[in-house]
């Protein structure tokens, strides 16, 4: 395909890009037809893409070719119809990755920029094939870039153009896979660490209503992905569950934190509105956990795959502990309210841990949990969860409440893992010893000292 460069050079930018897309299509069709496994687009072709579509300078001497805004729009339209008209999935996927797979070079910036515009456009005009390709892209790409794409979309739909949220809202029906990945990316992006990293209310509302209407939505990627343990390094989590748990647990304190004297107007409002949303979202998350045992059992993965990672939970508890400390420091004005919000955060944490553990989303022992929660202040429910139910409860029908970490099956990580691990070693770091966390002394067989006093 390299030989077409000469014919492309004299053309104007748009027609050259157009011509290249045309040839790329033919080239990939032939590639797929040839049956070579795996079909691999050659480096020469990728260079052509960078030169004529992404307009990365070929070498220092060559003048950078640029497109006008109008030309760029025309190119995007052509790309949209190009993906729309291609009926074969494989060809489309190859074409998409030929265009947008990050190459770790200079062209990646314009690649990301063009991708953002293309996906944003595809959402606006409902181009399902592009959204599907983008969903795959979000699974394979490093999370940093996924988050950047999400940021572009949130900016376009939630900040730039008022009233365009309903358009974005539709993606849950047009492409559930993309929607699921988008949620994962957004929850990764907004970790509530600062005001900038707090999701806009419209976005929050949208996500809550998506999940409320269809809790399985957050599991779509997980359900459609054959789990091989070969997740690309540092890609997004296979579900947004971890991110959603973080949102719900941190929200009471994060939104409170915004209520600094300087920001009295508006923030109170958003807090009042966000409160019930997070409550509903938290319930939805628990309900999703409850769907898991059946799904995991069907896939033969119950007790082998942790959808929630101990590391991220540990990060969450340490974040939370820091937030609680800060809240305490600011608490001189309204300590009662602070206490209520702190307890709400801890209640949610306890609930998420317990329900996730009981439904096989979290593979660890209560001892592990006690380790990561050791720095948290007292909360009745959390203590109950950490100590576990009283086991002499006379019940013969009780199903196993928690996954035993010493199960015969070897767990598989849903999380990007380090390839150095041997295939049958437990991949999730859930083993009982977490040297990095200071642990409270705990003696088995003794009544748990912090069991709630009823």
């Amino acid at each position, binding site marked *: 395909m390299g030989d077409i460069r000469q014919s492309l050079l004299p053309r104007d930018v748009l027609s050259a890009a157009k011509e290249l897309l045309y040839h790329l299509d033919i080239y990939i069709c032939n590639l797929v037809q040839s049956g070579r496994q795996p079909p691999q687009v050659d480096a020469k072709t990728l260079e052509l893409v960078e030169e004529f579509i992404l307009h990365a300078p070929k070498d220092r001497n060559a003048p950078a070719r640029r497109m006008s805004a109008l030309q760029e729009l025309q190119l995007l339209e052509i790309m949209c119809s190009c993906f729309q008209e291609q009926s074969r999935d494989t060809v489309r996927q190859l074409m998409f990755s030929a265009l947008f797979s990050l190459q770790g070079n200079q062209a990646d910036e314009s690649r990301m920029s063009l991708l953002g515009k293309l996906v944003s456009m595809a959402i606006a005009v409902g181009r399902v094939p592009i959204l599907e390709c983008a969903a795959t892209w979000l699974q394979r790409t490093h999370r940093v870039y996924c988050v950047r794409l999400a940021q572009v979309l949130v900016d376009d739909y939630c900040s730039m153009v008022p009233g365009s949220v309903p358009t974005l809202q539709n993606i849950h029906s047009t492409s559930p896979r993309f929607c699921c990945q988008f949620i994962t990316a957004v929850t990764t992006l907004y970790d509530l660490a600062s005001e900038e990293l707090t999701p806009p209310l419209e976005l929050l509302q949208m996500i809550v209503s998506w999940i409320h209407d269809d809790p399985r939505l957050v599991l779509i990627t997980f359900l459609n992905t054959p789990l091989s343990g070969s997740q690309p390094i540092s890609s997004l989590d296979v579900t947004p569950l971890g991110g959603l748990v973080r949102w719900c647990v941190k929200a009471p304190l994060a939104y409170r934190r915004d209520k600094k004297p300087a920001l009295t107007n508006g923030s109170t409002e958003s807090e009042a509105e966000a409160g019930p949303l997070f*409550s509903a979202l*938290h319930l939805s998350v*628990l309900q999703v956990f*409850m769907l898991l045992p059946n799904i995991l059992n069907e896939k033969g993965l119950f007790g082998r795959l942790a959808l929630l990672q101990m590391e991220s939970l540990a990060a969450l508890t340490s974040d939370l502990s820091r937030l609680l400390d800060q809240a305490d420091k600011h608490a001189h004005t309204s300590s009662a309210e602070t206490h209520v919000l702190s307890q709400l955060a801890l*209640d949610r944490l306890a*609930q998420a841990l*317990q329900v996730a553990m009981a439904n096989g989303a979290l593979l660890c022992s209560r001892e592990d949990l006690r380790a990561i929660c050791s720095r948290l202040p007292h909360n009745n429910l959390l203590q109950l969860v950490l100590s576990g139910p*009283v086991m002499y409860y006379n*019940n013969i029908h009780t199903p196993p*409440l928690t996954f035993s970490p010493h199960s015969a099956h070897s767990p598989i990580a849903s999380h990007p893992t380090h390839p150095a691990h041997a295939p049958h070693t437990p991949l999730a770091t859930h083993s009982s010893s977490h040297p990095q966390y200071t642990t409270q002394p705990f003696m088995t067989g003794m009544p748990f000292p912090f069991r709630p006093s009823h």
Partner: protein
Amino acid sequence: MSAQKDCEFLVKRARELVSDDPCAAKAWLITARTLYPADFNIQYEMYIIERNAERTASAGRLLYDMFINFPDQPIVWREISVITAALRSDSQDKHAQFLRGLFETLPGRVQCEMLLKATEQCFNTLEKAEMLLLLLKRFPESVVQHGVNLGETLLEAEASENVETAVNCFRKLFVCDVLPLVINNMDMRLPASLMQKYMLKAAEFYIGYVTRGPSPDVQIQGKSGLVSRGSQRYVIDGLSEKSSVVAEPWERLLDILAVVGARCEWQGDKGQRSYVDMLQRVKELCRYLPGLEGDTRFRCCSQVVICTALVLFRSAFLYVSAVQPALFQGVNALSSGPWILVEDLSSVYNDVEVERGAVKHAHKKRKLADGRERTMSSDDEEGLGKGRSRHIVVNKTEMPSWSETLESFRIARESWDLLHSHDGLETEFKKICASWKTDSWLWFRIFLTDMIIYQGQYRKALSSLLQMAAVQQPQPGQQSPTGQTSLEHHRALIQQASCHYALGEYRVNNTEVVMTLIVVIISEHNVLLLPCTTKAILPFCLQLMLACFKLRAFADSRDDLSLGHVVVLLQQDWPQGELLFLKAVDKICQQGSFQYENFFNYVTNIDMLEEFAYLRTPEGGRIQLELLPNQGMLIKSQSVCLHHTVTRGITKGVKEDFRLAMERQVSRCGENLLSVLHRFCINEKIIIIQSLP
């Protein structure tokens, strides 16, 4: 520090939150359940939240969990009984509908199990049956296991609860709900004897339902004529008003008959389309009956008897409901009044001598007399006794549905004859009658009596009428309103008198009959029937009285009182009785004198007046007539008299008072004859009774 306390703590937190933040409350309970999955209170609390919010799907899911995990919890059973009650009720309120919807979300297997267990926990037979019925209706496969048992339970309950009538809640459920499920389930093999037993149970119920009497309170309103009978409410004890309604009972009965017939492999049975067709088919079948033997014969007999009996009862009902609509609930009584089948008495005006000689061959005619004006002529081809194809005369304008009514009467008679055409059939039919206690069915007795009268079997008819009187004895618990009773009573008396007349028994028993007739006449006018009905009943009664008096009046011995009565009575239907009147005049002439003090009170017929005026003249024979009561009464009313010129010169040479009386009487010729005669009956009641033969 026990599990119990943990659970209480968790549920308490959820309860605190539920009003302000239901999502948080649910999150607590979800967490609680994963901690203590075996704790009932946690799951019940979850269920209550969903149920109170009327979220059908999630409440259903939780109910299912509770049912599976806590089958022994009384609270679960209380909840299930609330739901099954909603299923049984016809309430349309929102919560009942929610509960029904909730039940629908459960998997069929669970619904089935739930209903079965709910049934087991139910001690009231009726509720239990209704519950099981829900099960059978939803899960046809359960009919095989439970259908017959349920049916038998209901029949046993009916027997043990001593219900008075076949129209009771148990039978209703059995016949209308259980039976169709059982007989239409082809997976079940039911013995023919059982099918027939069930068939008869169904027939008894439907007939009882159709022929049920009006409820007492409605009757009182009905008398004032304000309430249309179509809108009557009827409730079977133990059932709701809605489920007390049985639509199209005769058709439903026919449906059951068709299925039973098909399953019992009845002859020539191609799905019973109508009762009339059925009678035709059964008649044909009857011809082969004598040639059949053993089992085939037995089966054929059953088929004939059951089919014919149903046709008989239906047609008899249709006939009686036209003749005596007030007997039944839901039959429109306002369109036509009660009707009475009596002998045609127009021969009463015939000459005594002729009649005496020809009692046996007299033209007996029957007519269906209603309470209104009618033409009362009929004729009869055959003599007494047989009476197979006699003619019934009805005023067609008075009874618009006369042809249907007479057709029903005919079909009923044919069915009856068919059932009595063969010993085997008669025995079977009598068994049915005995088990249904048809002897106590007043309406059926009315039909039978009419049929016997029609057949001309008056002696039998009289005993039938006596039986009817026995049936009419007010039964405990079923208080018949007075109007109804006396109407029926008088009806019977009129028919009794008619029979006696037909038998030629003027002397026997007549005192009572005529006396009661007078009573009837009096009461007629005052309370009983609709006013217009007197017009029809009265002439008939007068004819009967005439029949009683004329024998005596024309006897060899002198009886001026009877002769006077005859003259008064002969005014009716004048000049039909002219011949008899002339005979009376002859008798007076022979006697040379005649004393009848009521003459001027009740004789207003101008021809008769003329004749009597003439009798006083020399040309007439100077007959001594003492017609003035104590010679006084008339003089008082002299002043109002108009002077009329009476022919034949009676003004010449007659005593002044007689002349005045005569003139005054002439002025009364325009008076309504029936009211004159009615007055005669009322005022002279004692004299009449005393002078009866």
